[in-house]
């Protein structure tokens, strides 16, 4: 792999117009990555999902270079109907389109970031990989007091031009005071056997509100890692919803720093898996000051020989008195082969806090099925009804009613 990395890296440097400083940084990141390689199960954070093995088994050898100059035609059929929205379209590793048609032009700034790095609070080697091979990244700045009229949908599409490739994407968002933004990430892949490595960085200033919905529902054979870093100032709110279903493997990771008083973070997630899919959500919520709040709810429905992993951590430092932290994960295993692993973790250094977590996994309640069948439903109908209700609980946590309905339609949940 090392030779491939070196060769592809030289290609990147040659084709991108970079300053000497940037080249140095990229080189540094590359050597970091080369030393560590892909994360494996010896690392605590990757204990349940050995990415190195997964890539080896599903893809084999990866290549890291793609030509940024070749453009793709945007396929408008992937666009969501019935919801007016702003768009960012990624095709493979290229941003093909950014439009904020529904917004005031002077309130949003799109900054082409030529310089590469700001450090993530993430010590895994994938951030190094991303920094070394990322072609181009943008920063989206929402100005003071501006609340976007329509949600932003980011389409992550891939096509059959790429094969056994590693793709690195990066976006930065800054939400200035009193602003708000809704982001929906939609995956649509027609490619196979690629590794997508995506990093988002959100900077929320005072009173800012971020709602992020990540939807991975279309069947595909790609492997994905999606990292969200969220920094929160006073009174800010972040809400993250994850629907984890379509890819062969995806690990969604969220690192949230509650730095300002009265800031709060919500993470809700659904795993709905079939075949031998293996998905993971890992969250780290850092309560760094007084009166902050976090709430997490993760539910899984696992069929066939699928496997879901939830690692959630609540960290409370000694200054963060009056913290309220809650975490709940529940899983239904529908098949003998299915597997659910959880590591709900609390690390607490302050005494005046209210922190708790719960985790439960098991099969569908036979008594409930029996009850429904006595009311005239078939076994299959009762089963569906129960699963529906189980998942609806999470979807109902979505605070935006328009998007809630969109997502309900997408997964076919009925009320």
């Amino acid at each position, binding site marked *: 792999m090392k030779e491939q990395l070196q060769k592809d890296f030289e290609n990147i440097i040659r084709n991108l117009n970079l300053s000497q400083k940037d080249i140095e940084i990229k080189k540094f990141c590359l050597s970091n990555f080369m030393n560590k390689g892909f994360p494996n199960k010896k690392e605590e954070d990757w204990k349940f999902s050995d990415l190195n093995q997964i890539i080896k088994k599903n893809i084999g050898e990866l290549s890291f270079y793609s030509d940024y100059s070749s453009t793709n035609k945007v396929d408008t059929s992937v666009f969501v109907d019935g919801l007016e929205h702003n768009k960012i379209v990624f095709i493979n590793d290229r941003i093909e389109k950014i439009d904020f048609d529904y917004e005031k032009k002077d309130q949003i700034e799109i900054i082409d970031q030529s310089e590469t790095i700001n450090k993530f609070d993430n010590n895994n080697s994938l951030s190094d990989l991303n920094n070394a091979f990322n072609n181009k990244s943008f920063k989206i700045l929402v100005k003071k007091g501006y609340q976007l009229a329509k949600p932003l949908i980011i389409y992550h599409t891939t096509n059959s031009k790429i094969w056994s490739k590693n793709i690195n994407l990066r976006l930065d968002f800054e939400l200035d005071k009193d602003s708000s933004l809704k982001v929906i990430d939609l995956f649509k892949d027609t490619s196979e056997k690629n590794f997508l490595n995506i990093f988002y960085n959100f900077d929320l200033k005072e009173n800012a509100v971020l709602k992020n919905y990540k939807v991975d529902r279309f069947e595909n054979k790609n492997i994905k890692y999606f990292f969200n870093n969220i920094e929160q100032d006073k009174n800010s709110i972040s809400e993250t919803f994850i629907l984890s279903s379509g890819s062969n493997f995806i690990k969604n990771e969220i690192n949230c720093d509650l730095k300002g008083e009265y800031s709060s973070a919500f993470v809700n997630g659904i795993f709905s898996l079939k075949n031998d899919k293996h998905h993971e959500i890992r969250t780290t919520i850092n309560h760094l000051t007084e009166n902050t709040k976090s709430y997490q709810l993760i539910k899984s429905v696992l069929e066939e020989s699928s496997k879901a992993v939830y690692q959630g951590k609540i960290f409370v430092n000694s200054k963060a008195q009056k913290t309220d932290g809650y975490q709940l994960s529940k899983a239904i295993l529908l098949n*003998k082969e299915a597997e659910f692993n959880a*590591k709900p*973790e609390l690390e607490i*250094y302050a005494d005046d*806090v209210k922190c708790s977590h719960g985790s439960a996994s098991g099969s569908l309640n036979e008594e409930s099925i029996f009850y429904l069948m006595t009311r005239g439903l078939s076994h299959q109908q009762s089963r569906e009804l129960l699963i529906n209700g189980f998942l609806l609980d999470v979807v109902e946590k979505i605070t935006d009613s328009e998007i809630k309905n969109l997502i309900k339609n997408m997964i076919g949940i009925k009320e």
Partner: protein
Amino acid sequence: MDSRQKKINNLKDYKYGFSTDIENIQAPKGLNEDVIKFISNIKKEPEWMLKFRLKAFERFKVLKEPDWQKPKFPKIDYQDIYYYSAPKSMKDKPKSLDELDPKLLETYKKLGIPLQEQARLNGIAVDAVFDSVSVATTFKDELTKQGIIFCPISEAIQNHPELVKKYLGSVIPTSDHFFATLNSAVFTDGSFVYIPEGVRCPMELSTYFRINASNTGQFERTLIIADKGSYVSYLEGCTAPMRDENQLHAANVELVALDDAEIKYSTVQNWYPGDKDGKGGIYNFVTKRGLCKGKNSKISWTQVETGSAITWKYPSCILKGDNSVGEFYSIAITNNHQKADTGTKMIHLGKNTKSKIISKGISAGSSDMTYRGLVDISSKAKNSTNYTQCDSLLMGNKCGAHTVPYIKNKNSESNIAHEATTSKISEEQLHYCQQRGLNAEEAVGLIVNGFCKEVLQQLPMEFAVEAQKLVGISLEGSVG
């Protein structure tokens, strides 16, 4: 000194469990094959035992000291330890209670420990009238009548090699982790218990009643076998604080329960925790593992951990037999600069297996406490259930309380439920108690005891009363 006098002296010393033969004999410092041969030789062990030790040592050489635990400690130089030294003779020990640390005596008083026991704990020669050995012998007779074997493990190696050979290392193999293999290579003594088929042990077995029980030292090895349909309750440790010079304690405890058998293992650990500034104290790195080998067997661990500078242990159950049950009840209290990383592992292999974990952690002062546990339900363990509850109580904002559960469910017909909470003692509760005339410290003691009640209830009666007092004492100085 004529030879007769010498003989008498020998006997005198022997009464406390040590033969003068081995007095002052010390293996050379460090760890190598010769030292292991030396230990094996001095214990007059058979060939197979030496092989067992050497095999463990071979493995130990390639292992690295683990470093994933929360409480970090300065590197231990394993070549700088005496792996065998004969127990100290009476000469080096304090001659009377007056020589002891007054703080220690005060604690004894609060716990209500009788004078002669205080002396015994500190190795002071006890007057023949109070000699616990004679009490022990009466108990021993009763046990022998029922066919129960309860003796030091070195004796069992000599007298019951077939049992030891069969079960030693069957739960904690010589190829286990770092500290366990170290123990397998160099263990000096410990307890051996065998309960024959269908026998219900008539009393709580306790290290207290075993001759040669104290001073077995740093590398203790305990093996308990409960044959089909038998029952035994075993008590380890003592509520009174134990002074000890050895810093590292790496004991191994193996339990084997055959069909329909039940083992209840209770520990009260109150080793020296170091002083207020966190200097000194014991490193308590113990490997405890129980195997529910037979159908319908049950193993239950209860622990009250209040001592040691660092406690690092996970008493575990391997639920291999169908319908077997594993339980873990724990109270861990850390104060001042103490650190604890403790919990359990419940490995479900058989069908219809059940496990229950109740863990209560209390941290005060500048201490740090971690619950780390594993619940693993394998794909064959149909219809198994686990229930876990771990609650932490924090006092002050200089301490930490952490919960790190690992939950693995590979069976769709099995259920796992896990709950954890972290909180502090509410002002209202404190206020209410103080209003009723308790001082702040008593009030905290009362509330904490209520918090721990579920676990304290699991302890044998006499022990429970003392443990309750101990909980209060361990938290002294943490209020206000």
